[in-house]
């Protein structure tokens, strides 16, 4: 039976060594090196087609790498597949449920396939169905569910076996805000006990949940670090944004006399430095007929980091 804390494996929970995969001639995952610690929540970000799902499918032993290898809880994903499968669970990007069964049966099936006992399965299923607001219709065949309900069940089917390593491929896609928040809370609770590899396109999700983030683009890891580290890396020094009306070149040069590190942006200026005072700015601008609409510290989001690193254009 798989349950948390039983494994005494001391190394990294997931380790990728030059992991690669190509289809035909094109390399989709290109030499990933990565080490994810036990209990870490690692978020894999990247544009569509970057190779996130392909990476996860290799780590779940569904896809054979064409180069390199990886281990999950110390077991090799090529040579020791059954052992890897004993400690993992996956919530695939696509909703994956047994349509002819009801929600209880779906959860019991996955729990049983992972060797969870009956009473324990019933307890966990009950909790998950409550959490995901499916309890009321749990005895109904799931093919009659709405898209979002199916989605919620599909995720629950990964959670019910309480694996040591959990792969969540865009878990919150298609969920309403309530369900998404519920899911975040649940993931938050798993942090520290379960190693989680999570992909998402909701960057605020990665920002608030992830211990570390890896950004992949065209199959390569192009950035790695905590959300704060990544933002620092891209955002550069601290800065203040001043939005103003009637801002003239003359006013800007006057302001440059006070703050040399200034540059014009759309509808205002951006002043670099950590000692920017609002009344100094107003004293300088008001006599020149400029009204300050707003002034605030520049806030770098993960979206900024993402766009900066992976480019603005849509690919493919």
């Amino acid at each position, binding site marked *: 039976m798989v349950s948390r804390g039983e494994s005494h494996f001391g190394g990294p929970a997931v380790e990728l060594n030059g992991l690669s995969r190509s289809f035909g001639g094109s390399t989709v995952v290109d030499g990933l090196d990565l080490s994810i610690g036990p209990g870490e929540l690692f978020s894999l970000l990247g544009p569509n087609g970057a190779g996130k799902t392909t990476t996860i499918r290799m780590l779940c032993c569904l896809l054979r790498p064409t180069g390199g290898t990886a281990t999950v809880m110390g077991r090799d994903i090529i040579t020791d597949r059954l052992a890897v499968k004993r400690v993992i669970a996956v919530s695939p990007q696509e909703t994956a449920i047994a349509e002819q*069964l009801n929600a209880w049966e779906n959860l019991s099936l996955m729990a*049983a*396939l992972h060797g969870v006992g009956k009473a324990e399965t019933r307890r966990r299923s009950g909790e998950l169905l409550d959490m995901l607001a499916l309890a009321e219709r749990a005895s109904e065949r799931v093919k009659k569910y709405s898209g979002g309900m199916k989605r919620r069940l599909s995720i629950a089917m990964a959670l019910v076996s309480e694996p040591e390593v959990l792969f969540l491929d865009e878990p919150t896609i298609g969920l309403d805000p309530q369900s998404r928040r519920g899911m975040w809370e649940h993931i938050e609770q798993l942090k520290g006990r379960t190693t989680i590899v999570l992909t998402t396109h909701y960057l605020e999700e990665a920002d608030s949940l992830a211990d570390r983030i890896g950004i992949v683009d065209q199959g390569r890891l192009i950035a790695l670090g905590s959300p704060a580290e990544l933002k620092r890396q891209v955002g550069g020094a601290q800065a203040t944004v001043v939005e103003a009306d009637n801002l003239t070149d003359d006013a800007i040069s006057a302001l440059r006399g006070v703050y040399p590190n200034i540059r014009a942006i759309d509808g205002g200026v951006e002043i670099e430095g950590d000692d920017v005072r609002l009344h100094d700015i107003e004293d300088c601008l008001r006599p020149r007929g400029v009204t300050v609409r707003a002034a605030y510290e520049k806030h770098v989001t993960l979206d900024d980091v993402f766009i900066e690193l992976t480019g603005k254009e849509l690919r493919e």
Partner: protein
Amino acid sequence: MRARQLAIRNFKTILRDPLSLGLTIGLPSVMLFILQPLQDVDEFFTPTNLAPGIVLFGFVMLMFSSAMILSRDRETALFPRLLTAPLTSGDFLSAYSAPYLVIAVVQAGVIFAMAAVLGLEFEGSAMLVVLIMVSMAVLYVGLGIVLGAVLGVAPISGAYSAVLLLTIFAGTWFDLNQIGGPIQAVEDLLPFVHALDAARDVMTNGAGLGDIASDLTWVLAYTVAVVVVAGAAFRRRLVE
């Protein structure tokens, strides 16, 4: 244990399509009813001769269903999810075939019961007939697994027609010896006619194990081969 849970899921999936299941079990019995009055015209059409042929006819339908359920499953997102569970190819093989073997036993039981009502003669050992029929059930369901693991939904119908024809030409409701020629030559290399000959010989003439040893060898050898191929087909599906 894990395989059993998956088998139960597959069984539930089958049971929840009662129309197909009813047809699969009921249709062969209807065939028996329709054909057996012909014994007034041709003495071949006795329940004793017909029963084993009709059973094989039913098994072909089971082969089709098992191929379809697996092939259709493979197209869903659920299938890769199942593959991430710690199950071996043997587990998958038994989980997908066991429900159909259960149905095969029920189906064959219904046909033989019906034949008994219509006046089935039974000279030899029932165990021998059971052995032949169980082996053929495994063979057909195994063939279904091979087809389902390898082919998409569309080409399965073609393969089904081929196996159906080969089964019928083996003499499900006539004597292959009366046809002879190239058809018989081909059929002699396949297990179907050997299963029919052996079963009829046991029932009509009370043949024993020694008398049907050669036919039985054909049947068992093919069955083992199909099971091995089915296992290999599943193993190839485990990882892309």
